[in-house]
């Protein structure tokens, strides 16, 4: 697989991964902008509104019909938070030309439809359709409220809100209910035009087409894009240390049967010149999978929880540990998690643990090569971090990680905040007998 990268229009970069390995292709277009309180609700709304209809396909029904005709191609609006950069746009999956029974070519039509959705929304008097904006505001508010339905995700989200209260990282990619309800369609139209003119744009294609053909299809699809001065001043602010000297604790009560304990850590000085390979291996030894210390000790040996796992956001330099537990086990589990982290810091892990972790992260990385959507996600993050290597190169770096590298990366990790979701009094029933 060969990746090529080219600036096809000022500020618009096309990455092409040419391969005939896949039966389905992917094409994504992402506008890059800074995550902040002032613009988040407009950013969260815009691609949703654009998906409601275009001048040529004025409602969802006609857009859906056009997609069905392209053998059920999907064009999904998305908003992704990567560190403190927001990536807004569309992701499309469609079958490779070799498998269309009538031998039709889909790439040009899909690119054109994405271009249409991005550049030619339904308007009246030059303004976005008010009904669509109002309807998508309601949906967005419903989705924000729905976060509480998934208690694991909700509690992780709450931890980040509290832990990063002084940083834009605390802002959710959907924004807040208040923020969404205050967006007006006129304001949104102006913002949308500004976004089109100044955002850097990343395009990713994976499939069998020649990059020249992809470039031509996109140049055609984006011809009408109004470009002004491009805003390259976007990035993520990495905070090295915890906010206060001692970890902060937050608890919340809801009618739930299982408690959720979430702990947030800062990676500290390891982020000055981050060794991403060592961080991956470290996370895997500590809490990233079934060979990890958290899984083996907290779950398997002590039966303290159903899940306990860690994840690192390498763009922001934070590590989050989350766990589902009995309410009255919170103190033991917390201590146990910290103890396991100390063990990693002190080098108390075996050669086997290191080897398993390395083999597991290497396997994760090379298996990205089998999935167009995983490759898209990976390369977008790499681009945002200014890294040029692919999954295989990163896998090679992981193979070379030593226990010294892991200890060095772990040493500077510090606990910043702890969040605990507990039940209402009457729901508490500990099964201490088991």
């Amino acid at each position: 697989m060969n990746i090529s990268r080219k600036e096809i229009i000022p500020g618009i970069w096309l990455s092409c991964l040419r391969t005939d390995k896949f039966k389905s292709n992917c094409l994504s277009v992402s506008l890059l902008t800074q995550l902040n309180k002032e613009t988040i609700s407009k950013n969260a709304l815009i691609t949703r509104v654009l998906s409601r209809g275009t001048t040529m396909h004025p409602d969802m029904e006609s857009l859906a019909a056009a997609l069905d005709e392209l053998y059920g191609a999907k064009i999904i609006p998305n908003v992704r938070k990567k560190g403190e950069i927001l990536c807004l746009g569309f992701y499309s999956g469609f079958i490779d030309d070799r498998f269309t029974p009538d031998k039709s070519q889909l790439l040009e039509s899909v690119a054109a439809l994405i271009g249409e959705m991005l550049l030619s929304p339904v308007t009246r008097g030059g303004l976005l359709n008010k009904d669509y904006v109002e309807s998508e505001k309601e949906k967005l508010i419903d989705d924000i409220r729905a976060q509480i339905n998934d208690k694991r995700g909700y509690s992780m989200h709450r931890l980040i809100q509290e832990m990063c209260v002084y940083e834009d990282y605390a802002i959710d990619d959907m924004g807040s209910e208040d923020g969404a309800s205050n967006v007006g369609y006129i304001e949104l139209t102006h913002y949308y035009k500004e976004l089109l003119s100044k955002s850097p744009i990343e395009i990713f294609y994976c499939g069998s087409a020649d990059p020249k053909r992809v470039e031509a299809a996109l140049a055609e699809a984006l011809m009408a894009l109004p470009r002004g001065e491009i805003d390259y001043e976007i990035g993520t602010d990495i905070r090295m240390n915890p906010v206060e000297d001692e970890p902060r604790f937050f608890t919340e009560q809801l009618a739930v049967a299982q408690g959720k304990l979430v702990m947030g850590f800062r990676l500290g000085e390891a982020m000055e010149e981050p060794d991403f390979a060592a961080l991956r291996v470290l996370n895997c030894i500590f809490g990233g999978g079934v060979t990890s210390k958290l899984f083996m000790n907290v779950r398997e040996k002590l039966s303290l929880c159903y899940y306990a796992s860690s994840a690192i956001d390498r763009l922001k330099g934070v590590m989050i540990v989350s766990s589902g537990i009995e309410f009255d086990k919170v103190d033991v589990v917390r201590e146990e998690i910290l103890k396991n982290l100390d063990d990693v810091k002190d080098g108390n892990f075996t050669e086997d643990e290191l080897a398993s972790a390395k083999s597991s992260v290497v396997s994760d990385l090379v298996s990205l090569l089998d999935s167009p959507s995983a490759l898209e996600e990976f390369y977008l993050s790499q681009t945002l971090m200014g890294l040029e290597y692919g999954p295989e190169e990163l896998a090679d770096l992981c193979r070379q990680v030593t226990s010294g590298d892991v200890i060095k990366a772990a040493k500077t990790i510090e606990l910043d905040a702890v969040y605990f979701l507990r039940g209402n009094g009457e729901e508490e029933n500990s099964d201490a007998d088991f």
Partner: protein
Amino acid sequence: MQIFDYPSIGESIHTATLANGLTISVIPKPGYTSSFALFATNYGGADRNFKLDGELISTPAGVAHFLEHKMFDMPEGDNALSVLAANGSQPNAFTSSAMTAYYFESTNSFYENLEILLKFVSTAYFTPESVQKEQGIIAQEIRMIEDNPDYVVYDELLRSLYAYNPMRDTVAGTVESIAQITDKTLYDCHKVFYSPSNMTLCVVGDVDPLRVETIAKEMITSGKTEKPERDYGEAEGVLPVRTRFSRCMEVSAPQFIIGAKEIPEKDGAAQLRQKMIGGLALHAMFSQSSPFYTRLYAQGLLSTDFSADMDYAAGTLSIMLGGESRDPEKVFQQVCLETEKVKNEGFDPYLWARAKKSAYGSKIRSLSSFAGLCISMAESNFAGYNPLDSFEVLDAVTAQQAQDFIAKALAPERLAMSVINPSGREDVGEDA
């Protein structure tokens, strides 16, 4: 091995049945980095009552799932999950109403990992202590499920549809039911259901099918046994037990599933046809590109998580339409109206052609998911058809067949609905 080629979709499938009854299916995927293997038994949460040595045995809810957890313990003291993971693969397992499956995905040492998989799933090793310890872990998992509205709304829909079939009980069981499980229960169930003739091995990846077959022959040495005899209780009628269920939980908006049951075809080829007819009918009527969905979305009645599915399990066929809505009753009325319309007027020819095109595209896309492919290979091996035949069968489905299916299976009197309301809303309880 027998080889079936499907040039138009660029796939082939290699199949074999060993002397001991184990079925094997391999779909080679040259050029891919990872390979996926799934070893499954035709045994799930609904298989609670069965015959062992002529005697009828009843087991508590949750045994199949409990057994899944305990299978990873190996007699040498190792945990198979860790052994496989340390060998560079990502292993896991799941239990549904109808199936327990163990699988791994690996980017190297595939054949070695395959040997480990086949060995640990065939080896029963349980102790009273390890069973007791697992009760703590699974109790936590059950608590987690009890807090998950998606599971609760689904389980309650099944309780609304089925009167006797153990589909009524949750796959994981309850904290009380799993407390009754002993090491003996696990040994009995393993003996009955983990015999080769009740199992299948499915592999997708850049592998040599013959080598897969050879390894299976070497590792699975137990002989042929009778297929287990199960008892799902009295035959189910087509009407639901209760038409409505609702309950309050900590959710932001009502979550609903509208469901119905249909008599499943028993014969493999007939079941595949029924599956494609029903699937295409539901796709044309209720997919996210259907006029029904786009209309209700624009009216604010449906959100992007709406979906329609069919599920064959334990001698049942359930049809389910579910998602989130501020007014599930209105969605229910609209489903009835849509069904009535299809029953009386049939499918619009343009819409039908469109739906067929997009269903084909999404089936092609599904060939990229190794996990999804392996699961459908296992389902088809248990049901007795070839999964890749589905393209041809789908192509042959007519609008008339789809109309007939909908008119019958989604007749208004057959529909039930389960709803989870946000706490604080009036809880209307059950209606008979």
